[in-house]
């Protein structure tokens, strides 16, 4: 089985690059083919890359607090561009200020993200979930 393509990047005007470099290394090692767009990625760039690489999932990071504004509408744009089935994962410090995670999760699930992660998530579990979610979609 050839490796699954995924797209990775930090959305908006967010410059936090350390976690992004670690995620790239992690998912590559976990057997994915990663297209890492780096920091300061627009929704359009995410979608274009996903289409170009026929990616099964887009992994969006937002660390700097503007996640609520930057991440809204990505699901709709994906559908518009024909990416009805693509998985959307989002993670990082998604909102401004320390907030109970369930509240954050609810917000982003409502925006159409499939899974939402805090900064403390275990990357091992994330890649397991991702594999399972992709497999489930394939059925």
């Amino acid at each position: 089985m050839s490796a699954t393509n995924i797209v990775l990047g930090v959305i908006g005007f967010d410059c936090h690059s350390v976690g992004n470099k670690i995620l790239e290394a992690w998912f590559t090692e976990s057997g994915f083919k990663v297209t890492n767009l780096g920091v300061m990625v627009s929704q359009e760039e995410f979608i274009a890359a996903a289409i170009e690489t026929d990616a099964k999932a887009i992994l969006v990071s937002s660390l700097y607090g503007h996640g609520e504004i930057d991440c809204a509408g990505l699901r709709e744009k994906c559908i518009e561009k024909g990416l009805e089935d693509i998985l959307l994962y989002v993670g990082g410090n998604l909102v401004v200020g320390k907030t109970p995670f369930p509240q954050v999760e609810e917000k982003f699930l409502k925006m159409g993200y499939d899974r939402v992660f805090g900064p403390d998530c275990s990357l091992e579990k994330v890649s397991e979930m991702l594999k399972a979610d992709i497999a489930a979609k394939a059925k």
Partner: protein
Amino acid sequence: MSSSKLSIEKFNEIRREILQTWPTGHGLSLEEGIAYQKTIPEAKNFAVAMRKASQAGKTLLQPRAGVALIQDHIKLLQYLENEGEADLLPTTIDAYTRQNRYQEAALGIEKSLQARTSLLNGFPAVNHGLAGCRQVTESVKSPIQVRHGTPDARLLAEITLAGGFTSYEGGGISYNIPYTKKVPLQKSIDDWKYVDRLVGIYEEHGIHINREPFGPLTGTLVPPFVSHVVAIIEGILALRQGVKSITLGYGQGGNLFQDVAALISLKNLAHEFFAREGFKDYELTTVFHQWMGGFPEDEAKAFGVISWGAAVAVLAGADKVIVKSPHEAMGIPTKEANAQGLRCTRQAVSMLRDQKFPIGSEHRVEIEQIEKEVRSIMEAVYRLGNGDIEAGIVAAFEAGVMDVPFAPSVYNHGKILPMRDNNGFIRVFNKGNLALSDDIMAYHREKLEERAKAEGRNVCFQMVTDDIYAISKGALVGRPR
């Protein structure tokens, strides 16, 4: 544009353009700004506060803070001043403004009004304009500084300096390489030349404005020599434009001895290179940043990190310490959490301020080591620039002769890999093209092998990852699990 002082004609030409880029800039008068600054009492002047702290051997406390709306921002600052006992105040600018996206900032203000809470990660000073800034600076008692991360900070500087701020953070390298992806280095250096010249003009009119290059860069395992080179060069570029009060910064590395050595060498080296460039008439002070990398989520553990940073700041003799909060790992702190960070820091700072830290011989070795490393890079920069530091640094970044770890900019080589040695000193594992001599690298390698031996594994990339997570997971060195 050459590396010399910006001519007044050129300055005015740029000024006309830049004021047009957003309505709050239209018609801004420099004369009126200078006149307004003259009304600010000396007790609120940042440059004076830094000089006095340095003379008295004090370490001043400054938090980071900024929210979307003016009234909330004022309340926040007053709280930090009163409940937090901050000596110096900040106004942290939001990330849209930092990218000159005033339209998005406007949307952020609007959404924040609706949500009744700040959806922006800072204060959008350009959108709030001159009047908004003056409202802020007039409602506090302490010196107040603009803190941001803006590669093109010209309009922001015009508005905030006329708005009564007396210190301005940043620089053409330190607010580019760690903060952006696609801004050419020459562009940000040029744009910061304008900012420095603006400060120089204020100085020429008798207004003392403090300038502070951003020391910690990416905040993640930055070896002292890397940030020192940037700090010193930005210092030189600022002095060239007439800046007089300059505060050089350094972000805590974690090992007490390396951190103290770093702060001592920073001051020595800055004086050395400022003299080499022919500068005499300046006030040099230092700032120490509490740990700038990933924090532990648990607040009690975060207090442990904060307090240790406070202690080292004092032992290293920093004139100012930038304070983190127990919310650091999770999100922008509430005013309460921010004040907690300040009070924890205050306690540590006051308990330590009377304690002398004698420098022993082992320690002097580390100071000399850092000095050797910085001189090695600086010589390469001068060489690449044919004696000119500005041309040199642009070329150096291009060639990877100068390189910042983990930085997002495509104009950064990105090959350097730092790593902790067995005592937690930050060393260089992979030098990329850094202009470090073989004997310097041999020293680093030796230290890293010591660690590898202690851990029973080879020096490897996994150690870098382990080190990145280490403090957030409760240790300094990322040992194998």
